[in-house]
């Protein structure tokens, strides 16, 4: 008998008992739909975490200057400016795993437009900073090395600052703002980055050339960096190596004897990111376990009903055998029936799961992500469950003796 014919016979047999077939698939439906919905939600959450880390900067390390101790009170990282501009240059030029490095000096200051004012973080840095944080301009042009060399009074402002000073949707490029009463020309508005993992608004920022920052805003020492160094490694796999190499380089340059503490510290942000992703992976494993259990339960339901069906249809099986069905035909027929039940359950489950995830996304604003591969895997797995759990009843049917089967009451 052809496959198509076998399938038709199977579908006829299943539709003869619609309610029972539906109830049988219910286990599969619930299991698959739960998995599909949970994976969509889990992936949405994961994507959000990844996006947040990508916004922070990719493969990013932050080198902080060291601590100072006065009278036993540790000042904490950054209290003593130990990083010099020469250190920065060395990091940029001597370490091959470093893609870019930039000093970042920071103060909190009030900024004013013509009719509004806002207190924000003011950063002094070099153009590499935009590259490290993959942060393009939405309006205007980012400042360049020439601006740093010339100490021009230009500023790149974050979206939040632009909104606060000039109102939403305005294009303030070319406008004048004052930082600590010094006029700056807004040359660019940075594209929106949103919030960090910890709720900090990335767009609440104003960035000026580091030279201008030192001369006009911060003052103080010229040969040390009164801030930190942001570094981006060449790739995710070189981040850890870059960290080690920077540590070695700085210890060398600072002539630190073996056994003494670093007079600086390095934070590896991608390590935090991978810790977060480890969390999501655990969640995914848990989901897979739930999926396995629910498919198992669904499979047992199918096996149960197929066994009942084989018993009920003993005479039919006997008749089919008498008129020429081979044991293999009977085996295939019952196997295809179980497969059809399971795959139907899987498909309905996928539809329900997607609908459920969509509902959660629209009514609660949850982020969901639909992955076609998960859907394909879910359907294939349901089919597999059908075959595995259908095998025993089908085998039982195929081993019936036609004489006994025909006499069965």
């Amino acid at each position, binding site marked *: *008998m*052809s496959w198509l*014919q076998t399938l038709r*016979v199977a579908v*006829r047999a299943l539709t*003869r008992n619609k309610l029972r077939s539906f109830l049988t698939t219910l286990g599969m439906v619930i299991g698959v739909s739960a998995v599909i919905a949970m994976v969509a939600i889990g992936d949405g959450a994961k994507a959000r975490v990844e996006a947040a880390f990508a916004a922070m900067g990719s493969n990013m390390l932050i080198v902080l200057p060291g601590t100072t101790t006065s009278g036993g009170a540790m000042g904490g990282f950054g209290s003593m400016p130990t990083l010099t501009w020469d250190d920065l240059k060395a990091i940029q030029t001597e370490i091959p795993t470093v893609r870019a490095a930039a000093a970042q000096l920071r103060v909190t200051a009030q900024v004013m437009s013509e009719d509004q004012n806002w207190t924000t973080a003011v950063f002094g840095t070099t153009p590499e900073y935009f590259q490290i944080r993959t942060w393009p301009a939405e309006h205007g042009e980012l400042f360049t090395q020439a601006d740093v060399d010339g100490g021009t009074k230009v500023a790149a402002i974050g979206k939040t600052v632009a909104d606060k000073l000039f109102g939403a949707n305005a294009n303030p490029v070319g406008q004048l703002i004052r930082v600590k009463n010094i006029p700056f020309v807004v040359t660019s508005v940075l594209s929106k980055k949103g919030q960090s993992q910890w709720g900090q608004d990335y767009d609440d920022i104003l960035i000026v050339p580091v030279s201008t920052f030192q001369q006009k805003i911060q003052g103080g020492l010229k040969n040390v960096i009164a801030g930190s160094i942001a570094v981006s490694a060449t790739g995710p796999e070189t981040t850890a190596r870059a960290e080690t190499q920077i540590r070695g380089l700085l210890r060398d340059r600072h002539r630190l004897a073996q056994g003494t503490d670093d007079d600086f510290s390095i934070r590896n942000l991608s390590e935090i990111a991978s810790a977060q992703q480890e969390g999501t992976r655990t969640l995914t494993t848990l989901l897979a376990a739930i999926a396995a259990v629910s498919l198992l339960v669904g499979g047992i339901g199918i096996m149960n009903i197929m066994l009942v069906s084989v018993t009920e249809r003993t*005479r*039919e099986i*006997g*008749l*089919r*055998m*008498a*008129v*020429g*069905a*081979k*044991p*293999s*035909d009977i085996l295939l027929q019952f196997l295809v029936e179980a497969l059809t039940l399971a795959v139907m359950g899987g498909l309905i489950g996928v539809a329900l799961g997607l609908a459920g995830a969509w509902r959660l996304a629209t009514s609660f604003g949850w982020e969901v992500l639909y992955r076609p591969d998960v859907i394909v895997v879910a359907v294939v797995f349901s089919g597999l469950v059908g075959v595995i759990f259908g095998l025993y009843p089908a085998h039982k049917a195929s081993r019936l003796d*036609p*004489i006994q089967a*025909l006499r069965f009451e």
Partner: protein
Amino acid sequence: MSGKPLVLLENVVKTYVMGDVEVHAMRGVSLSVEQGEFTAIMGASGSGKSTLMNIVGCLDRPTAGSYFLDGEEVSRLSTEKLAEVRNRTIGFVFQSFNLLARTDALENVELPLLYSGVGTAERHRRAAESLAKVGLADRAHHHPNQMSGGQQQRVAIARALVTHPRMILADEPTGNLDSRTSVEVMALFQDLGRAGITVVLVTHEPDIAQYASRVVVMRDGKVLSDMSQVPRAAQVPPPEPGAEGQTA
């Protein structure tokens, strides 16, 4: 009929083991049935007639002895091969009709063709033709529960005929029918014999055996008697009660 017999049993023995007890259902049966013969097999229950029927129908294999069906030794064939032989050579008619419920007459008749790899269009055509042969062309889309017992048995006969078998095996085909429809079914079988199809009928009713051209009586797993006879012509009586035509 001349030439080699369609069915040739040589000293067939069938022994079942039921628990610790050996049941000798057939103790050496030799029988030959010619092409086109209408044979009735009779006997009390336990006489071995059902076992004989199962072996002749290739549903079971003898413990010893040989069975040549249409010249082919089939007693040692595998289960799969026997299914092919049944599909190709034999049509079955049962006491309880064994039609698939909630399935119309046409599809019921098509069933054997599903297993011989006949295409859909050809299947429909042959099933319709077969239904017409038993006079049920207009009932093709009726379900078994919408038909009388006689009609259901005729659908079953159409199903048996649809593969153009060499032999029809009927196991108590009139057991669930009233006398009038029984005669109708016998008339059909006599027609088949005239068309060259061998009919083997198992029955315990002497009335029914009268319509066959040969009666084999079984007892205790052996052939007790084997006689040819002039068959009683099956004439379907007119609907008026009491009027029963009879010709020898």
